[in-house]
């Protein structure tokens, strides 16, 4: 098996990839917003403070990460912080993808929607709301998208059973 070269931690990434456009832009904009970073299996993950996500999205968009690919969540129940949001952003110019990661505390967390930056996030944020119960402030139409409107619970949470009674 090939060896995995990884940079773990904010200091290691800032040291190892100082010229990376996304890292540079975030550092120039607000070094405090970058909580943690990781470069693993050729994928760069930047952990952003939850309240700064919209501004961070606008920042990386301005330096050429022009295409919103994907947004989803991971439930790390029962550890804390419980939820992780992963935004995947693609750059057509650099031919590279980055991941913005947000960690959220609490049972029913909320954060700012990035739909003003990328309207494409609309359905994805609705999906995360539907299946994980994370709310997005400023979303134009935050309703359930896959489950019926009168459904109780959020199926992709880890405390929601795969089969049997809820």
């Amino acid at each position, binding site marked *: *098996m*090939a*060896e*995995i070269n990884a940079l773990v931690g904010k200091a290691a990434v800032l040291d190892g990839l100082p010229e990376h456009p996304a890292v540079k832009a975030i550092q120039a904009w607000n070094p405090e917003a970058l909580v943690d970073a990781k470069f*693993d*299996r050729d*994928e760069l*993950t930047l952990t952003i403070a939850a309240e700064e996500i919209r501004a961070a999205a606008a920042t990386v968009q301005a330096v050429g990460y*022009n*295409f*919103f*690919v*994907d947004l*989803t969540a*991971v*439930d790390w129940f029962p550890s804390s912080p419980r939820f992780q949001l*992963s935004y*995947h952003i*693609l750059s*057509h110019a650099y*031919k*590279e*993808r980055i*991941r913005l990661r947000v960690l959220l505390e609490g049972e029913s967390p909320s954060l700012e929607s990035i739909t003003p930056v*990328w*309207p*494409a*996030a*609309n*359905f*994805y944020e609705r999906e995360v709301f539907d*299946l994980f119960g994370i709310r997005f402030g400023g979303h*134009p*139409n935050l*309703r*359930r*998208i*896959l*489950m*019926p*409107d*009168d459904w109780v619970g959020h*199926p*992709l949470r880890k405390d*929601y059973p*795969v*089969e049997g009674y809820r």
Partner: protein
Amino acid sequence: MNSGTPILDVPAAEGSRDQHMVLNMGPQHPATHGVLRLVLEIDGEIIVRLYPEIGYLHTGIEKTCEAKFYQQVVPLTDRIDYLSPMANNLCYCLAVEKLLALEIPGKAQWIRVLLSELTRLNSHLVWLGTHAMDIGALTVFLYTFREREDILRLFEAVSGQRMMTSYFRIGGLALEPPLDFFHRVETFIHSFPEKIDEYSNLLTGNPIFKNRLKGVGYLSAADAIALGVTGPPMRASGVDFDLRRDMPYSGYEKFQFRVPVSSDGDCWARYLVRLEEMRESVRIIQQALDGMPEGPIKADAPRIVLPDREKMKTQMEALIHHFKIVTEGFAVPAGEVYQGIESPRGQMGYYVVSDGTAKPYRVHMRNPTFATLQALETMCKGRMLADVVAVVGSIDIVLGEIDR
């Protein structure tokens, strides 16, 4: 899914709604290619607002994945998109192989490319047939399904299944292809370009077909990027980006092909781009056949890849590995990966999170048409009601992958 609530529980449009009528298209409508409900607000015959209601086919595949071993997820990925099962297999396998840092032998990679392109042909043939049928050109459907049948027979030869192939496995392929397989593929693609000409003869010069598509469903390049549109609809809007060429995977960097792009952004451009893509796929398949390397079709990783039947019956270690993989699965190092591929409908992505056990902690699928559906309103707004059918056909949706 919207069962008990008011029909248009979405923010109201500007101005008076007195003269507007709300019309439901679907969930059971032949032109929606599945169970899609479009809530249309119309002023006479002009679309004022359009709102897709999805979720009718939601089966919770992502949740099911969390309860299965890594190798048991492969058959689930087939069922997401029944028109391009191999694309889903490939994307999932590549993601897990990235987590495992597994080297895939050249022959397996080339067969994967070959079959991915056959999948693209298969998917585009169904799209072409049904799209033309929606518009009223019934004949083409019969022609495209004739060739699709040939492709399904090839799939059957290689995997034993026509549609739910599950042929790509973590670490390589399920089986050696049968002896005459490459010859059969060669015969098929030798005659296929003529068949594309045949479809083109039926449609490209057809004034009715042209009038229904030309200038309809316009999407600008900026809108395509803002709304997350990928694949042929994005390239038909003038954005020149294809993951196969720009971020190659599974050995695509060794193939020469063009990426068709058009700047018109209408349904007609999407039709031409897909037709051109089929010709390029034939070129890729030809190159894959010509340069097919020799060697194994499975990675050398006995703890991950199931042993050959012969070995299993003669060697004790192989039998132990087989037993262990089947009963306990294999542990995957902790981490998260995102693997994107260019599926027939656009950028497909699998996001796999591992916590170091034998079951994936989280599997998320980014399916191209889920995002493309968001652009439907932009494409249809201000157009006639009848154009919705043409536009829905031109973005080539599959509800199975949207709802998952």
